[in-house]
């Protein structure tokens, strides 16, 4: 039983850390530029496809990831400079719609280049099997994801909380006018943050690609989760994004694992097996709604 809980906790951690990679960029873009970017998921998709393509071309997963991160960052910067910049001053509805349009375009472009069927991206041979930790087996690749996720989360935290650039970013998130008044080139900062966020998306796409599926529309389902994360955490807060990610990751994984058997203890098996998965899949939305009802600006609001 302990082993089951431990394994599920690791799974939740792995899922949560990947969500964090997506949520980190999203929350900063959201916080600093007050911009809803639905196309964030498309960058994740682009990252996964580019990784698959580069891995296939080079034969190395590492090269694939590096190429994809760089290319996606450039792509992100391009989109920011040519399009998103025009939307900062607009209302949320305009932003939602324009970036919704970007999703449609991105999906179709990917479909034109790679076709409608999922693209193959396999786990590197040496990581395809399990490793033994403690008394049980755990997939090596998932461990790698946890390690990479934790490393990036740590680096990002140091970057944002300890460095000058990080200070600008935090200042930008809590008060944009003030930051401008301090003589910081906010435009450049925006582009840089956006490109960095895109690179993190690509990393998440690359890491999750072999585990899940590299397919059109892969960005949308995870995008919604990333939004749930940053709304729970408080928009603009890296700390909030991390807490929110881990919360969503754990609640989702443990909920799916535990709810059906939990329900079975006091409901008939038939009803439990029907209701269990239903409740498990709405659990994170219940979590988000209750947090928002309790604290309408999330757990760690960046603005006061």
């Amino acid at each position, binding site marked *: 039983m302990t082993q089951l809980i431990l394994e599920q906790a690791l799974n939740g951690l792995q899922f949560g850390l990947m969500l964090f990679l997506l949520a980190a960029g999203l929350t900063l873009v*959201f916080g600093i530029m007050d911009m*809803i970017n639905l196309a964030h998921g498309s960058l994740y998709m682009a990252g996964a496809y580019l990784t698959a393509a580069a891995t296939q071309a080079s034969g190395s997963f590492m090269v694939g990831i590096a190429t994809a991160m760089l290319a996606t960052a450039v792509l992100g910067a391009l989109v920011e400079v040519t*399009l998103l910049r*025009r*939307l900062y001053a*607009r209302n*949320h*509805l*305009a932003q*939602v*719609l*324009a970036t*919704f*349009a*970007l*999703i*449609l*375009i991105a*999906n*179709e*472009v990917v*479909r*034109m280049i790679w076709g409608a069927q999922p693209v193959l991206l396999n786990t590197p041979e040496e990581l395809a099997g399990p490793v033994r930790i403690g008394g049980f087996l755990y997939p090596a690749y998932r461990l790698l994801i946890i390690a990479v996720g934790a490393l990036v989360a740590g680096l990002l935290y140091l970057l944002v909380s300890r460095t000058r650039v990080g200070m600008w970013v935090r200042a930008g998130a809590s008060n944009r006018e003030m930051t401008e008044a301090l003589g910081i080139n906010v435009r450049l900062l925006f582009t840089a943050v956006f490109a960095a966020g895109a690179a993190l998306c690509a990393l998440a796409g690359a890491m999750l690609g072999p585990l899940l599926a590299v397919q059109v529309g892969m960005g*949308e389902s995870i995008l*919604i989760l990333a*939004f*749930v994360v940053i*709304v729970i955490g408080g*928009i603009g807060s890296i700390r909030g994004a991390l807490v929110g990610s881990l919360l969503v990751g754990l609640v989702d994984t443990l909920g799916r694992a535990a709810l059906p058997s939990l329900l079975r203890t006091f409901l008939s098996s038939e009803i439990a097996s*029907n*209701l269990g*998965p*239903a409740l498990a*899949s*709405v659990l994170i*939305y*219940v979590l*988000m*709604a209750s947090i*928002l*009802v309790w604290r*309408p*600006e*999330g757990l760690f609001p960046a603005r006061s």
Partner: protein
Amino acid sequence: MGFYTTSTPRRIAAIALLAVLVGLPWMLQAIDQSFYVSLASRMLIFALAATSLNLVIGFGGMVSFGHAAYFGIGAYCVAILAEGGIVSAAYAWPVAIAVAALLALFIGILSLRTRGVYFIMITLAFAQMVFYLVVSLKTWGGDDGLSLGHRSSFGAFDLKDDTTFYFVVLALLAFVLMALDRVAHSRFGRVIQSIRENETRMEALGYPVFSYKLVCFVIGGALAGLAGALLVNQTGLASPNLLHWMQSGTLMVMIVIGGVGSVMGGVVGAVLLMSCEEAFVEISPHWQIGLGLVLLAVVLWAPLGIAGLVGWGRERE
């Protein structure tokens, strides 16, 4: 964006459009394309759904990203009641409206405490809950949806006939549009539009802003429920996809293309978007790129939508 006003040219255009729509079945019959009558019904139903969202977003200024929930729940109500043997529109449709309104009331009470982005996201979250609940519940057909064997009975009218059904839909839509036009010019309409313009000021003028927004939100949900009830009659299926967040997005796209905060915006947007879909699908499998580009162009260069471009929406700034 001042208050919505209906100018004479606008009235004339609306009446002309109505005349064309009334004559449509005969025109289609003349060119032996009666098949398109049911497509036209579907367009009008989506026009109704978009109009209900336009009341919430365009007039009330509440950017709800979960409107598909009410649309879908209306459809499911009719299908569920039909399973239980209640097939009369006189019962089933009002129940669909009432259930959608209750859902909107519940979601509204909790969501309207939040502002801006948080509101967008919390309405989305609630809609996702409804979506996953419906998909997971086998009694409601789960992922398969719930099919409706026969269209609702509607007094002396035979809704199984596509043309009759079309006219019922058209009549309801026309009534809702007329009512929306009246509401826009009523005291309530002015209040919600003013809240859209400046919420804190309205509160400081003594308006219980929350109540007004809630009422507007609930009316929007109720109308979406009616649209859902009609749609399940048109297609014969309450599908979980009606509740999907992409459906909420599509309704938003419709009103933005048509004109946010314009009485006819939802109609213009729905008809335009769905005709483009019909036409583009024939041209290229990658037609969504075209749709995306058009949408981008509208957002960037025609923020008041088509209704705004032709001077049919609110005045330009």
